[in-house]
C-alpha cells in the first residue's frame, strides 16, 4: 500500500473521529431511529374513548409490538406472557386516545384473594431524550398510564373482600357516636384514610397516572393530576383497553402531546393475572415512536425534506463531476490488465 494515497484519507478519518466525539459530548445526534412507529390518525368529532370495539378504531392502523419478559431486575419474567400487543391511536383537536389490544385466554379482574392477580397494561412516555426504557432514570423520567382490570371492574360497583369471603366477620368500626370527631365509621381502613389509591372507595378512572425516575421510584400523581380516562372490554379472548387524555393540560408531570411536533417515545407493558404477573413480572416492549398527525400539507409544505434531499442529489452530482475530471490512475486496474481474474 502506497502511503501518499492513504494519508489524506487517514487524516479525514481522524477528523471524523474527533467530530463524532465532539458531537456525542455536546449531545448533538446525527442518526435517527427508524424503529417501530405508531401513527396516530386524526379523527373528526368525539373519540370513541368509551367504546374499545367501536368501528371508529378501524380508521387507525394497528402496529404490532413485540414483547419480551422483564429480565433486568427481580422479580424477573423470563418468558413473556404475551408475544405481542397491538397499538393504535386516534387524535382530535383536544384529546388523544391510545388503544392497546392483546390476546388473553383468561379474564382476571380480581385481586381480593391473596393468590389472585389482575390483568393490567401500561403505556410509558419518555419525559426527556435518552431516558432508560427500564422505568426511567434520574436524568430522564417517565410518565406512565397504568390500566388495571380490577380497577375497571370496580368502576360500576366496587368489590371488596366480603364478596370473596362472604362468611368473614364484620370489620370492627369506630362507634357511630364518634363519627363527627373521629375518622368516621371506616376509621380502621387505614389505606383509605391515608389516601392510598389502591384502597380508595371510589376512583375517577381505571387508569392510574404515575411517574418514575428509575427502579423503585414509581409514584402516583396527586388526585387532581389523575386526568387519564380509561375504558376496557374483554371479548372472545381479546382485551381492548383505551386510555385517553386531553392533549395539553399544563401538568409538568405529564408528557406533552402536541400534533405537529417530533415523535413521542413510548413503550408498553402488559400483565397476565392468571400467570401471577404483577410488579416487575411483566411483558414489556422496547421504545416505539408515537407520531401525532401533522397538519395537512401539500408537497411544497415539506420543503425541509425536499431541500435536504435535493441538496444530497446536487452534492452527489458535484462530487461525481469532480471525479470525472480526475486522471485515470489508481482506480484498481488489476495487475496484468483488464482481467476479472486479477487481484484486488
Amino acid at each position: 500500500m502506497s502511503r501518499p494515497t492513504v494519508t489524506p484519507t487517514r487524516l479525514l478519518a481522524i477528523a471524523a473521529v474527533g467530530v463524532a466525539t465532539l458531537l456525542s459530548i455536546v449531545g448533538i445526534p446525527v442518526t435517527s431511529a427508524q424503529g417501530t412507529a405508531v401513527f396516530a390518525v386524526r379523527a373528526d368529532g368525539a373519540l370513541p374513548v368509551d367504546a374499545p370495539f367501536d368501528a371508529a378504531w378501524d380508521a387507525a392502523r394497528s402496529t404490532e409490538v413485540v414483547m419480551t419478559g422483564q429480565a433486568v431486575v427481580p422479580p424477573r419474567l423470563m418468558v413473556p406472557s404475551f408475544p405481542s400487543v397491538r397499538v393504535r391511536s386516534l387524535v382530535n383537536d383536544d384529546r388523544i386516545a391510545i388503544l392497546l389490544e392483546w390476546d388473553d385466554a383468561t379474564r382476571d379482574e380480581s385481586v381480593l384473594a391473596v393468590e389472585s392477580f389482575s390483568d393490567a397494561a401500561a403505556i410509558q412516555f419518555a419525559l426527556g431524550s435518552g431516558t432508560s426504557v427500564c422505568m426511567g432514570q434520574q436524568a430522564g423520567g417517565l410518565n406512565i398510564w397504568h390500566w388495571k382490570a380490577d380497577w375497571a371492574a370496580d368502576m360500576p360497583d366496587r368489590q371488596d373482600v366480603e364478596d370473596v369471603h362472604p362468611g368473614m366477620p364484620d370489620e370492627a368500626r369506630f362507634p357511630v357516636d364518634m363519627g363527627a370527631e373521629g375518622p368516621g365509621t371506616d376509621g380502621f381502613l387505614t389505606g383509605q384514610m391515608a389516601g392510598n389509591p389502591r384502597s380508595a372507595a371510589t376512583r375517577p378512572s381505571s387508569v392510574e397516572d404515575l411517574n418514575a425516575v428509575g427502579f423503585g421510584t414509581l409514584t402516583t400523581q396527586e388526585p387532581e393530576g389523575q386526568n387519564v380516562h380509561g375504558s376496557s372490554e374483554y371479548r372472545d379472548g381479546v382485551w381492548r383497553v383505551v386510555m385517553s387524555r386531553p392533549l395539553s393540560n399544563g401538568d409538568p408531570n405529564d408528557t406533552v402531546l402536541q400534533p405537529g411536533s417530533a415523535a413521542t417515545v413510548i413503550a408498553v407493558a402488559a400483565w397476565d393475572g392468571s400467570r401471577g404477573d404483577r410488579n416487575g413480572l411483566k411483558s414489556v416492549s422496547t421504545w416505539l415512536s408515537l407520531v401525532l398527525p401533522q397538519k395537512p400539507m401539500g408537497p411544497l409544505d415539506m420543503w425541509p425534506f425536499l431541500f435536504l434531499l435535493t441538496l444530497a442529489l446536487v452534492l452527489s452530482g458535484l462530487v461525481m463531476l469532480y471525479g470525472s475530471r480526475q486522471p485515470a490512475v489508481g482506480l484498481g486496474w488489476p495487475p496484468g490488465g483488464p482481467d476479472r481474474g486479477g487481484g484486488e
Partner: protein
Amino acid sequence: MAVGAGAVRRARPRAAFADAEAIDWLARLLLVAVATDLIVTRFVVRLAIFVPKGEPFSTLSAALGRLGAVADAFVPLAGLLLLGALLVRAGRTGRRGEALILSALAVVAAGGFALTYLPPRPEVLLVLESLVVAVAVGSVIHVRDARGPVVARIGLVALAAAIALAAIGHAVDLAGVLAGSSGVSAMTFNVVGQLSFVCGVALVGLGGAHDLVKHGPSRGRFMAAGAVAALLVGLTAARAPATSGAIMIWSIGLAGAVPDLIVAVALGLAVTGLPVLYRQAPALAIGAAIVLCSGYGLAASGLVLAGLLGLVVACRTERPDPGPVGDRNQAP
C-alpha cells in the same frame, strides 16, 4: 498529461480519495466503526443494564456508554466518507448504474439525518424505504461479476434480500397508514427477512469456510473462533433465553423468528469463514461483514447507511477502467 487530437491537456492532481486503496481503507474503517458500534453500543452497553450499578460497575458502565455514543456517532460519518469516495470514483469511471445507486444512497443518508430533527411524515418515510429497496436490489444486480465463491455471493444476495424485506415491511406499514387501512400485516416480511438474514450470514461464512482446507495450520484458529462464537450464543440462549432474546433484538435486530441454535450456527460459520473469504475476495468479505454488523431491521439511520454501503462494497468489481469521462472520446 493526456494528449488528444491537436490539444494538450494539463495534468490534474489525482484524487487519492477515490483510489482503490483509499476506498478499501475506508471500507475497513467503516467495518471497524460498525463492529465497534455492535460490540460496545448495542451489546456491552445493553448488557450492562442487567448488572447491578454499584461501584466500580457504574463508573465502567458510564465510560462504556460514552464510548458507545462516540461509536454510534462515528458510524454515519465513516459511512459518509466512504460514500464520498465511491461517488468520486463513480464520476471517474462514468458508470451510470453505479452513479444512480450511490445518488439514491446519498438521498437515503440525507433523509435519515433529516429525520433526526424533523417530525417523521409517512410519505417521506415511504419514499426513503423505497429507495432502500432500490439500492439493495441495484447493488446486487452485478453480484455475479463480483469476485468470490458462488456460495458466498448467494449469501450476499440473501443479505440484500433481508435489507429489502425489512424496508418493504416498513413500507407496507406506512402505505397502510397513508391509505387508512388495517389490511396487510408487515410481520410476514419481518419473519422472512430475518430468515434471509441468517441464511445470508451462514452462506457467506460457508463460502469462505469450504476453502479452509487450503489454509493449513491457521484453519484451526478460524474453526476454534467460530466454534467459540457459536457455543457462546447457543449456551447463553439455552441458559437465559429471555435475556439473550432481548440482547439479540437490541444488538442485531433478530426478534426470535429464527431459532437461537440456527443463529448460533450461522454466526459460527461467519466467524470461521469470513477471514478465509477475505484472502480470496477482500471486498466481498468486508462488505458482507459490514452488513452483518449492521444487523437486521437497521433501526438507526447510520446503520441503514452502513448496511447499504456494505452491499455496494461487496459487489464492487474491478472491470476495465474506461478512463476519465472527458477522455473517453479521445483517441488512446
